[in-house]
């Protein structure tokens, strides 16, 4: 009985820390987004609230909190209220299995990754429902777009990690990281194509540019959340950034060695003489590495957003089904071969060979699916085939 109570309390504490940390992280990732956007565009970004605008997220949150909550008269009230919550809850629920450090995760499921994909696929309901419940045309179009987009990209997203899973031999998030620690190789070096596909699909799943069609502000005003204001809007906002964190953390776990230090191959360990400092460092450093990798990936997502134009809806679908999916499947086939080679060959033979095959695969794949590829699609139109 005591055991159960203790477990529950520890679990609650962990949940509180993770949720609190992530909520703060989300708040400050909006700050990061705006700062990076500003710097890229030769301006400063937020500067007024606090030193260098550091309190800006808090001010934004307060503003959203006290804003007028508008409800369209024709809206379906129940669903209109529910959909921001439906959007946010899966995003947070996924955090349960993300291993921030070797001893720091809420839980470790043996179906970890599957759980993530299952739960993450639910966030879309929030968007579709929001689009429908608003009873307005722009949100409706946004909702429809997002439904089609999420369903399409989820397939490639799931397939892209399978290559890495072949090497990991486990679905548990902790297991995947530990495998990378024991073999000493991050899966991104074995599966660069998988990583790229995963990342592109991740961008699409989080509705980030160049795939932010559900909320393309230039066409659909704000897409599915056009009619939302105040805290309900803030929920969508929170969900979007939480999803960014989630996608980055999964990429970190599966491809970038999780909490492993990039300097692990040097074999440096903290000396015993440090005493309690050593145990703090031993606990803290992995978390630091994990967060650093997540930060870098999020930075990359933001960087991409402020560099590229946006795809059109039909092009988005074409890329999802006609480029990414064939590549993901090719990658799985290749991964089988690669795994055999990995077992048989020494590393100095394996890497050049694997990378060579990978290069050939990309070139071959690009040629093979060229007729479906967007770029060649433009070329086709150029030549007047269509």
């Amino acid at each position, binding site marked *: 009985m005591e055991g159960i109570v203790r477990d529950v309390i520890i679990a609650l504490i962990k949940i509180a820390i993770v949720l609190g940390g992530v909520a703060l992280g989300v708040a400050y990732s909006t700050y990061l987004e705006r700062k990076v956007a500003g710097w890229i565009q030769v301006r400063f970004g937020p500067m007024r609230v606090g030193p260098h605008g550091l309190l800006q997220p808090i001010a934004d949150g307060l503003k959203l909190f006290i804003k007028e909550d508008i409800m369209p008269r024709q809206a379906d009230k129940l669903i209109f209220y529910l959909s921001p919550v439906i959007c946010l809850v899966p995003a947070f629920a996924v955090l349960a299995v993300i291993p921030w450090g070797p001893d720091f995760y809420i839980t470790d499921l043996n179906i970890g990754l599957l759980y993530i994909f299952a739960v993450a696929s639910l966030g879309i309901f929030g968007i579709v429902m929001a689009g429908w419940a608003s009873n307005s045309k722009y949100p409706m179009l946004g909702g429809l777009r997002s439904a089609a987009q999420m369903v399409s990209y989820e397939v490639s997203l799931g397939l892209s990690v399978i290559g890495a899973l072949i090497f990991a031999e486990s679905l548990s998030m902790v297991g995947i990281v530990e495998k990378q620690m024991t073999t000493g190789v991050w899966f991104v070096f074995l599966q660069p194509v998988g990583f790229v596909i995963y990342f592109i699909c991740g961008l699409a799943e989080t509705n980030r*540019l160049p795939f932010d069609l559900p909320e393309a502000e230039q066409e*659909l005003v704000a897409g599915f959340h056009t009619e939302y204001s105040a805290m309900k809007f803030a929920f969508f906002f929170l969900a979007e950034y939480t999803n960014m964190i989630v996608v980055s953390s999964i990429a970190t776990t599966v491809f970038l060695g999780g909490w492993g230090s990039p300097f692990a191959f040097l074999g440096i360990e903290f000396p015993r003489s440090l005493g309690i400092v050593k145990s703090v460092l031993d606990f803290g450093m992995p978390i630091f590495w994990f967060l650093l990798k997540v930060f870098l990936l999020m930075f990359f997502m933001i960087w991409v957003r402020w*560099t590229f*134009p*946006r*795809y059109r*809806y039909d092009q988005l679908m074409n890329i999802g089904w006609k480029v990414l999916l064939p590549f993901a499947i090719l990658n799985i086939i290749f991964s089988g071969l690669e795994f055999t080679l990995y077992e048989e060959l020494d590393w100095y033979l394996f890497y050049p060979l694997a990378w060579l095959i990978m290069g050939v695969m990309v070139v071959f794949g690009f040629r093979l699916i060229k007729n479906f590829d967007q770029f060649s699609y433009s070329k086709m*139109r*150029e030549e007047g085939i269509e």
Partner: protein
Amino acid sequence: MEEKGFGTEELIVNMGPQHPSTHGVLRLLLTLDGEKVVDCEVIIGYLHRGVEKLAENRDYKQNIILTDRLDYLASMTNNLAYVQAVEKLMDVKVPERAEYIRVTVAELQRIASHLVWLGTHAMDIGAMTVFLYCFREREEILNLFEMLCGARLTYNYMRIGGVSCDLPDDFAGKAYKFVEKFPKLIDEYEVLLTKNRIWLDRTVGVGVISGEDGIDLGLSGPNIRGSGVEWDVRKAEPYSIYDRFNFQIPVGEKGDTYDRYLVRMEEMRQSNNIVKQALEQLPEGEIMAKVPRIIKPPKGEVYHSIEAPKGELGFYIVSDGTSTSPYRLKIRPPSFVNLESFKKMIKGHLVADVIAIIGTLDIVLGEVDR
């Protein structure tokens, strides 16, 4: 079960007059089949101020400030067109230095206007950053104009017979500095867009219009040159002193959004070239011709058109010979005429292309509605 119940239904979406990417108060009534645009009705007039009627009650000098407010992104060329029309009516010879200054500012204005086009067009397609880069350079041009005439948008700089004030001392130096560095900055925009696969996907084959159709619809400016029609008023009927400069007019081939993009990019380079030459050749001398204080042109009528950044901008003025205000003033605004082709371009494209095509037409509602 009746089968007709399962047919698809068209969705009518009202885009604008308040919409982030209709470039002002343009209203589009789109009939959509899914995401496909089946039909489109363009509704204008939300910014109508009756400029042409107002002009009949103001004297010739006061009308210059009305032209500022037509295409408010290119006031200088509007001024130029009007002023030259009146000069043609009165048969005034403008001093050399004034002509050079006019060409300099008009071409700088063309660059500024094209920068706004590029920025907003790219932003409509999703590339926010290009917008801010473009506005950074436009800001420098506006600073130059501000130094020159004390205003940033509605310059009211040209006068009948010359320009209102001479160049300030440091103008030529600053302008030259800008002209020197600008081509490199165009290259930067091109890195972000020209070969980018997303940009290609969004622009190639979108909004195609053939040269013949373009001529039928009265398209002008970069829009018709994108379709391969060699028509530029600066070359075809040289006005001012354009025949003295070395420059080329870029022409596209397919007539799609990408071609119009390339044409405008090259045009910026050429304009930059003209500004450079004009600054180098700038003569000393008067800036105003001898015109009477009260302008009363002889009885008659005149049509004069110039190559504004958006296309052929024409002024038709009728003077009764007794009044100090025009009897009739009619404007041929390029944006208004170019907008005619919108319906033809959009048929069969998707919603996202609507904004791409509005962007590529480069309309300014101040000019469309007048």
